């Protein structure tokens, strides 16, 4: 059993900054030390051509390429830069009409991922209506235990009762069919700051227990996932001195790098630099901002495709986060094979972005996106189920899509208004059953504390409802 090792950062790594890292990789110099990045040595090609799926010799990267591996300075784990986020697998209805994970599909995807070098699998007891751990356990247990790293979480949102926490912890071993967990996270910290942390983990002795488990090697690496504002994050960094987080999972993508609203979430630039300063390896969640960056506004698509017609829209977002050296793994909730393959093409024979490209994304492109009135929903479904049956993320996703695609009817004077109006209303009914639409929100506010993005959900639902009502009455 591997015991926890203290982090000894190689000097090369400790002092490297983004620019130097890029410069080095750009020159094709192999990085020395713990974070030797296999395959990061970019050939001398222009950035515009490297994202193409097929190499110049006509061979598919999927067949010839090598997965980018990042070394965890804490214990030497060679972790694939692409991590599998196990919260979005397809569900199907069982005989009783209940949603169940489509296990066959999970197996296929996970087998394919493993075969292409993905070795980090991130799950949680609450994902997929509580079925994710088990499904992942079934798929992974068909492979040698040392061929992958399991990450799961302490999702004790339901209650601060120690008993709930113990059950979640013990179930993880059963569900995942293992006797040790590689990466264990205190799930979704941030809201409530140090006080919330105290109630959830300190007062009930849960953290003490987990620290002991870390010593015993049952938990190889103990970390946390963070959603929240800057003071809360600073609190977590203070706690680092006390507990030593082996890794931290943050929301990072090119939009949130500089454009986080500061109230609900913090600029990823700040988070990254704080963690980098302390030498804490970073796992990235929401690299696509819940899919929003894979389906941005038309004008954004245009700019990106102009730069590289071959590269998928999503690949830009993945390359962005992968270009930062402190990043250990980037989680992507890949639902379908094409998502997996697209990401594999990005992270096999990985080519980081140039400094100019990084700025292009985190400033130029993000500035355009900031001008669209979308709801910053990631479709994480933490707010669900709504007690009144409302499909909260579904409503936001539908709204965002229509805004981003420029299909949103805005005024009667608009050209094509009648056509846009019909398509908006018909697609709304298609996406959301009538009884689950925004007009049924009573404003009970039970969803608000559950939203990791701190979206004022009832207010946003009312805004959309009022908009739909205007469309229906033709008074826009």
């Amino acid at each position: 059993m591997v015991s926890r090792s203290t982090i000894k950062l190689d000097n090369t790594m400790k002092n490297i900054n983004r620019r130097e890292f890029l410069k080095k990789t750009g020159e094709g110099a192999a990085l020395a030390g713990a974070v030797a990045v296999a395959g990061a040595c970019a050939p001398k090609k222009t950035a515009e051509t490297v994202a193409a799926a097929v190499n110049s010799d006509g061979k598919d990267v999927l067949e010839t390429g090598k997965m980018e591996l990042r070394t965890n300075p804490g214990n030497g784990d060679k972790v694939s830069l692409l991590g599998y986020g196990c919260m979005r697998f397809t569900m199907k209805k069982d005989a009783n009409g209940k949603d169940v994970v489509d296990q066959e599909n999970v197996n296929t995807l996970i087998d394919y991922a493993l075969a292409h070098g993905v070795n980090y699998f991130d799950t949680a007891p609450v994902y997929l209506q509580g079925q994710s751990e088990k499904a992942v356990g079934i798929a992974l247990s068909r492979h040698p235990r040392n061929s992958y790293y399991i990450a799961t979480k302490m999702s004790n949102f339901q209650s601060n009762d120690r008993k709930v926490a113990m059950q979640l912890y013990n179930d993880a071993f059963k569900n995942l069919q293992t006797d040790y967990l590689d990466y264990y996270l205190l799930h979704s910290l941030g809201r409530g700051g140090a006080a919330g942390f105290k109630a959830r983990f300190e007062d009930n002795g849960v953290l003490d227990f987990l620290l002991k488990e870390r010593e015993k090697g049952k938990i190889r690496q103990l970390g946390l996932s963070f959603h929240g504002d800057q003071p809360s994050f600073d609190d977590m960094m203070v706690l680092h001195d006390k507990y030593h987080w082996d890794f931290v999972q943050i929301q990072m993508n090119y939009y949130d790098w500089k454009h986080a609203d500061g109230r609900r979430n913090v600029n990823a630039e700040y988070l990254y630099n704080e963690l980098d300063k302390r030498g804490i390896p970073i796992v990235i969640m929401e690299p696509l901002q819940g899919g929003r960056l894979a389906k941005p506004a038309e004008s954004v698509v245009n700019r990106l495709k102009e730069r590289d017609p071959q590269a998928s829209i999503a690949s830009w977002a993945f390359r962005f986060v992968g270009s930062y050296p402190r990043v250990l793994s980037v989680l992507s909730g890949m639902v379908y094979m094409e998502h997996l393959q697209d990401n594999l093409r990005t992270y096999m024979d990985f080519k980081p972005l140039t400094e100019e490209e990084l700025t292009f994304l985190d400033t130029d492109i993000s500035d355009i996106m900031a001008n669209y009135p979308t709801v910053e929903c990631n479709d994480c479904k933490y707010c669900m189920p709504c007690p009144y049956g409302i499909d909260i993320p579904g409503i936001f996703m539908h709204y965002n899509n229509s805004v981003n695609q420029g299909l949103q009817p805005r005024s009667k004077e608009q050209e094509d208004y009648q056509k846009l109006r019909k398509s908006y209303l018909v697609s709304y009914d298609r996406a959301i059953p009538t009884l689950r639409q925004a007009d049924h929100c009573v404003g009970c506010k039970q969803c608000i504390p559950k939203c990791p993005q701190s979206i004022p959900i009832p207010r946003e639902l009312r805004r959309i409802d009022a908009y739909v009502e205007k469309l229906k009455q033709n008074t826009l």
Partner: protein
Amino acid sequence: MLKKIRVTLATLCLAAITLLFLDFTGTLHHWLGWLAKIQFLPAVLALNLVVIIVLLLVTILFGRIYCSVICPLGVFQDGVANLSKKGKKGKYSYSKEMKWLRYGVWVVFVIALIAGINALVALLAPYSAWGRIVQNLLAPVWQWGNNILASIAEKHESYTFYTKEVWLKSLPTFLVALGTLVAVVILAWKNGRTYCNTICPVGTTLSFFSRFAAFRPVIDASKCKSCHLCEHKCKAACIDIDGGKTIDYSRCVDCFNCIDNCKFGALKYRFAWGTEPNGTPAKANHATLGTVRGGTGAERSGASGGAERSEAFARPEVPSGDSSAPADKTRRAFMVGSALALGGSALSSVKAMAQTEPAEDEPVKIEGEGGFADIVPKIAPKRSVAITPFGSESVKAFYSHCTACQLCVAVCPNNVLRPSKDLKHLMQPEMSFERGYCRPECVKCSEVCPAGAILKITPEEKTQWKVGTAKIAPWLCLVDNGTVEECGNCARHCPTGAIQMVKKDPNDPKSVRIPSVDESKCIGCGACENLCPSRPISAITVDGFQIHHKA
């Protein structure tokens, strides 16, 4: 030739009227709506004198062309008869007029019309019978077909077709429609136009005029070789060759089958004003009451068909009123259940712990994320007065004009209109808000009603008319009974701003706010009832007004 023209026109008419009932978007109505308005009974009920006079003039000039071309149920029967063995081979034969049944039904119908026994009127009226058959039996198939197209369209991101919810709007009406269809098909299969000449009150009314028709098929006795071919081809069983080569013009529907089939040119559709049934001058003797051949068969089938109809009519179960008390309990249980399930949200976790402290060894139920809460379907509340559509002016006016053809039900996009299950108004529509509410911008029903039961209004006028008013059951209101601290969904969606959220305790500045209805502004559209989170019975429900009036 005449027959060909008749068949072509009749087919077009039938198809167009049927489409009117199938087109739930209401767009065809713009072009074809007049076909519903020229139907005889709706015109009578709408007091549409122009249509009535024209129809009667046409009948007195040309006979019962109406029955063979305009009436959808009549044309449908011709179709059925054509498929039958008897129709194909031409094996009909003359039968005597069933006077007692025919005039008996007519008298009953007229009495029902005057006395306001609307269900009986609706049951016998031919156009509305066809409307019900299409709306209840064919429309679901049409809509399923539409939904298949919609799902294909969805895949191609086309918005041409959209899904239409298919639901059984009223079981009694469905059964009546089914019974009518079975009876009519049996009668038409066995003996052609039996229904039209024994039961149909419109047919009987027109027969009073058609017997004097100026133009009619006339047998030239000198050319007639008594081959009986015309008699065998006559679906109305009104040609009597053996009884003096006469035609009973009260029953002849001008289908022209006889004329097209006569090999000797003995039958002509011609001007014959004032002549007797066999074409001889009025004073000559005739023998309409002569030998009766094959009449028994028709009589028998007519009688059995009648029996089936009355059985179908008696069968419908009238559902007992919904009791609100037990439903209330179910709703509470549901609310409590969902409140418990969600009690453990992060912020209220301490409080929730105290409430849901699990027993020592019992495993805690871990809540996963995602999924949907079940939604309990709404149940219609008891309404002291039925709500009739905007534009109907009063409950009485609405029900005395309505022929229960279901055209308004067919076009209602909000699933508000459905046939009444109340025996007095059986099959006539009423409004209810379990699936939607009467939206302020929609006036579709008022545009299609051919019988003057729903008069045409504009959306602007609509929000000024009061068809009912909302009332609140405080014990069901989620804020009032303490389930939630804030709601106001009714007030938020009231199109006239009639609902005010007021402090429950006026002396407490932090009091929760409960809804109150400003009766002077409420129009009874049902937005509040439909969107009220209280299920299955809404905490705010609408009662109709006997007489609608301006707000």
